[in-house]
């Protein structure tokens, strides 16, 4: 036994360090996840001495999807947020990271300012700001562009554009962490690749599309996932309010909330999957680029 211990000492030590997480995962993630699934297929009531579960099949789901008055609106708001915010966050934060990576004055200060929202934004603060209209870009409605879009662009196209304008500050405020991640991606990039491209006569535009964007691709995936989770957990998301309020309402209850939760979780998983299909499979390029880099250095 002691020989076994000595031989596997390192592994055992590692396992011992990880043990708290395994316990925590079992109690606070795995068990609740499974139980939530069970709740979503049951009618949950609370007699005096605890919890009573009554299996009802998919009744909760049909309830949510077919007959609930608030779910449809909440769902469409949430999906609009996801579809409009995530691409905009990716584009904005990539541009801002490029800006911070270029030789501008007071770079440190600007960077600190861009990171400010990550520190101070919480649900109630956002709510109170948007109530005041402070979250809308000040005076943007007065710009002729706004009027122009309203008048000449077909509504199907104009809608998302105007939506983005209306939520510009909010979107920028979600950009803090993505900017940081893009920036560290940019700083890890190989200078010599740029120099080689320059010698070969590539323009800035070509360098951007052929070098910068491919290198940043994995970071797009990372930031995409981060933004999806961030937006989903934000109090701006009406689904969350529905889940929370539903808990103690007679007409809804735990089973209802659990069903909404599962649908909400499904949306997150599908979004992550879409992001993976778009950005996730580019590992090969990066790997292929590495030996070349090694030769050079």
């Amino acid at each position, binding site marked *: 036994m002691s020989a076994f211990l000595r031989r596997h000492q*390192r*592994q*055992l030590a*590692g*396992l*011992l*360090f*990880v*043990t*708290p*997480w395994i*316990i*925590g*995962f079992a*109690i*606070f*993630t795995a068990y*609740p*996840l499974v139980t939530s699934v069970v*709740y979503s297929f049951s009618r949950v009531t609370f007699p005096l001495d*605890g*919890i009573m579960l009554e299996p009802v099949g998919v009744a909760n789901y049909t309830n949510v999807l077919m007959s609930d008055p608030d779910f449809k609106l909440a769902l469409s708001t949430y999906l609009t947020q996801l579809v409009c915010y995530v691409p905009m966050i990716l584009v904005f934060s990539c541009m*801002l990271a490029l*800006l911070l990576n*270029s*030789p*501008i*004055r007071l770079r440190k200060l600007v*960077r600190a*300012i*861009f*990171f*400010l929202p*990550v*520190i*101070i934004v*919480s*649900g*109630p*603060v956002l*709510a109170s*700001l948007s109530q*005041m209209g*402070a*979250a809308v870009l000040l005076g943007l409605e007065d710009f002729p562009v706004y009027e122009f879009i309203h008048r000449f662009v077909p509504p199907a196209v104009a809608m998302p554009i105007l939506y983005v304008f209306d939520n*510009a*500050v909010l979107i920028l405020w979600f950009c803090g962490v993505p900017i940081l*991640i893009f920036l*560290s991606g940019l700083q890890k990039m190989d200078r010599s690749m740029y120099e080689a491209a320059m010698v070969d006569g590539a323009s800035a535009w070509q360098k951007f599309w052929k070098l910068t964007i491919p290198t940043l691709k*994995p*970071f797009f995936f990372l930031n995409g996932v981060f933004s999806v*989770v961030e937006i989903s957990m934000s*109090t701006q998301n009406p689904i*969350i309010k529905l*889940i929370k309020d539903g808990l103690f309402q007679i007409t809804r209850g735990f089973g209802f*909330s659990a069903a909404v*939760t599962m649908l*909400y*979780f499904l949306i*997150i998983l599908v979004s992550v999957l879409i992001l993976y299909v778009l950005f996730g499979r580019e590992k090969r390029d990066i790997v292929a680029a590495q030996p070349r880099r090694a030769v050079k250095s």
Partner: protein
Amino acid sequence: MNRIIPERTLGRARHVLLGTREKTGLLTHLVLFVLTIGLCYVFVSPLLTMLSMGLKDGKDLNNPLVNWFPTKLYTGNFDRAWVVMGGWNTVITSGSMFLIIAAVQTFSSAVIAYGFAKSEFPGRKLLFALMIATFVIPDQVTFMPRYLMFREYGMLRTYLPLLLPAALGNGIRNAIFILIFYQFFRMMPKALDEAAMVDGAGYLRVFFTVSIPLAVPAIVVVFIFSFVWHWNETFLTDLYFGNAIGTMPLLLERFTDNYTKIFPPNVDNPMAVLNEGIRMAATLITVLPLLVMYILVERKLIESLDRTGITGE
């Protein structure tokens, strides 16, 4: 055109303005400068709005001619909002609570990440993948059974429902924190540990005397983020704490109710009516402790962020 201005002058002017391949031009600099200023304004303007509206009295608020600068500095809004928000009491109780939770979460994340980073036990890959996967499981998915569990053990209205998961590496956004430490420990040269082990130090000893002192940047980043994200959390704190523990964002959420309780509207004191100025003052008070902290630690935080390189491999 070409005859009036010699071609060489034109070319040089173009180079100065638009830049060459080697040097950025003046015009590019200008565009970047204007863009940067504009963006900074967008980021800071909500804070400025809070400050300027918070300092306006009722007359200034209703006067359309008064825009950014109030006619006189009026601190009554802040006085009243401060009372409704519970004053120093709230700052100190919630602040110290979150400091403890953040410290515990930082420590447990470091321990767990160390296990993942430094040894190859069977099942490590699977567990690590599960750990990463927990990132996409929002608290909203697991909170119901958690809530009932904490209720059963009588832990509601205390800070334990936040502390216990954090202590076991399953707290708020714990996957990120473990990942930050994991990458940091991975970057450390193995020779360091081995040298300490040859000298007869055990695993715990190596962890505490070699790895932890070297991981200061990761500790700074994780601690600050954990503190900030706990401070700004309202979904779980609202459920777990109820009215027992007031955090600043929660009190901001309930501001209107609390305000009318403390300053009931009456005819004698028309100034006490809840207006936008008072609301903005309360919002500023909510973010002010974080703002002060950020200004104090900003340099250290950014520097640490650079050194942890929080990105996937």
